[in-house]
């Protein structure tokens, strides 16, 4: 575990809805955190009463417990006119925060876990795609990913081959870009912001920036919740609970290229919080 590294990242700690429910206690990197105030003026304190810095970005309240925090990344698509921004609340999962991110990057499980929605048998083949670590901003990117999807989004009218791109801008955030069914030249953006409560438990805050003016908010959120809760029961049953970074621990297949790159990238930067790194 490398708490020192993890302390200097920013994490989602609240959204507007959760603040409207009143003060709340939560956890971040193993420690208790007190959340109160309003969305305009959130008050975030650690267990000793120290005020923690906050910033509002991507419809969520972010905080950090580090002394020298790295700057929070940007998701420029969030500012594009015409997109609908959809915060989806949070879901608690008893798994490593890194496993939650890794699962989000994996397409091979679609036909089996999101049957008849994000995938279907017999269309289980993952075509070769491209994975790289972009040096200029030190992010993991997977591009040219293609997959057949019976119901790619709430806005989809039927099955389509969806183009995907994945981006990991920070160890506990994953962003995906996918073909927008009613606007095939554009891409929907779906993100998970993972709040690490401990190395083995996390709160996951999904957020979407979509081209969809028609679908009611409740339907958009519930589509996302349906998908994510299908993953949750799988995630809670993965063993070992922490993410192994040693490639000998879990044999990768070709479709796992993104996961291999993500694990290497974590290892390189020393982001071991939530990782099984006993052989490192």
């Amino acid at each position, binding site marked *: 575990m490398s708490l020192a590294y993890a302390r200097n990242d920013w994490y989602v700690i609240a959204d507007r809805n959760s603040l409207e429910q009143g003060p709340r206690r939560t956890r971040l990197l193993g420690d208790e955190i007190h959340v109160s105030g309003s969305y305009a003026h959130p008050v975030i304190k650690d267990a000793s009463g120290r005020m923690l810095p906050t910033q509002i970005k991507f419809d969520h309240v972010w905080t950090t417990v580090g002394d020298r925090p790295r700057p929070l990344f940007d998701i420029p698509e969030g500012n594009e006119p015409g997109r609908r921004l959809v915060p989806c609340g949070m879901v608690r999962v008893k798994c490593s925060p890194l496993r939650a991110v890794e699962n989000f990057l994996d397409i091979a499980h679609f036909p089996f876990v999101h049957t008849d929605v994000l995938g279907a048998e017999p269309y289980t083949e993952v075509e070769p795609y491209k994975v790289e670590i972009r040096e200029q901003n030190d992010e993991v990117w997977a591009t040219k990913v293609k997959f057949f999807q019976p119901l790619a989004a709430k806005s989809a009218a039927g099955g389509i081959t969806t183009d995907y791109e994945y981006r990991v801008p920070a160890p506990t955030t994953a962003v995906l870009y996918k073909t927008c069914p009613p606007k095939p030249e554009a891409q929907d953006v779906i993100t998970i912001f993972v709040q690490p409560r401990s190395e083995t438990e996390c709160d996951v805050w999904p957020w979407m920036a979509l081209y969809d003016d028609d679908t009611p908010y409740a339907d958009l959120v519930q589509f996302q919740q349906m998908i994510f809760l299908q993953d949750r*029961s799988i995630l809670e049953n993965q063993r070992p609970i922490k993410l192994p970074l040693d490639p000998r621990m879990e044999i990768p297949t070709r479709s796992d290229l993104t996961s291999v790159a993500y694990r290497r990238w974590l290892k390189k930067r020393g982001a071991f919080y939530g990782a099984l790194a006993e052989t490192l």
Partner: protein
Amino acid sequence: MSAAFTLYDYVLSGNCYKIRLFASLLAMPYQSVAIDFYPGYEHRSERMLSLNPAGTLPVMVTSAGGQVLTETNAMLAWMALHDGGAQTPWFPAVDPALGPQVQQGLAFGAGLTDSIGLARLHAMLDWPVDGEAAKRAGLKHLRALELHLTDRQIDGGLWWAGAHPTIADLACFPYVALSPDAGLEHDGFPAIRRWLYAVRSLPGFATMPGIHPLHELR
């Protein structure tokens, strides 16, 4: 075909799933209206409270007659009777042996909302309740159900009561199947596992998040 009812629905709700599942088993068409239970707490909005002052989901409004039903047991009964009349095998209400047994199962199923259901909301969505107490109550319920189903299986039965699945099975199925979401695993409950498998094998079975399709068991 025209919708038999409108369902005010939430995708992660085990109680809403009772109705979606039964509709799928009966191939009964209905119209679903998504309510933002979480994160929006829309079930407590004025519009929803005027429909159901108890502030719970699901709510069913029947197309013929416009009855408003807010108890899932009543909805299951309505659907069984709407589908098959008094002869429906799903709800042998006036059978002197089976009728009371089915009522027993319906009441047991309703009790699961406050045990396993709350433990699950706490574990999943950080619902502000005593999660540990709800989980303990859930474990008691699983043990009681295991006993009941073991007795049934010794007598050669598979369902809560009688030779055909009834709305009592459907009232119990969702929260029992979803209990691992709350950390209540099925490992120590062989009779429950057999019964879950039987329900999942029914023609027309529908899943919900947390309940995987049967191909993963094979």
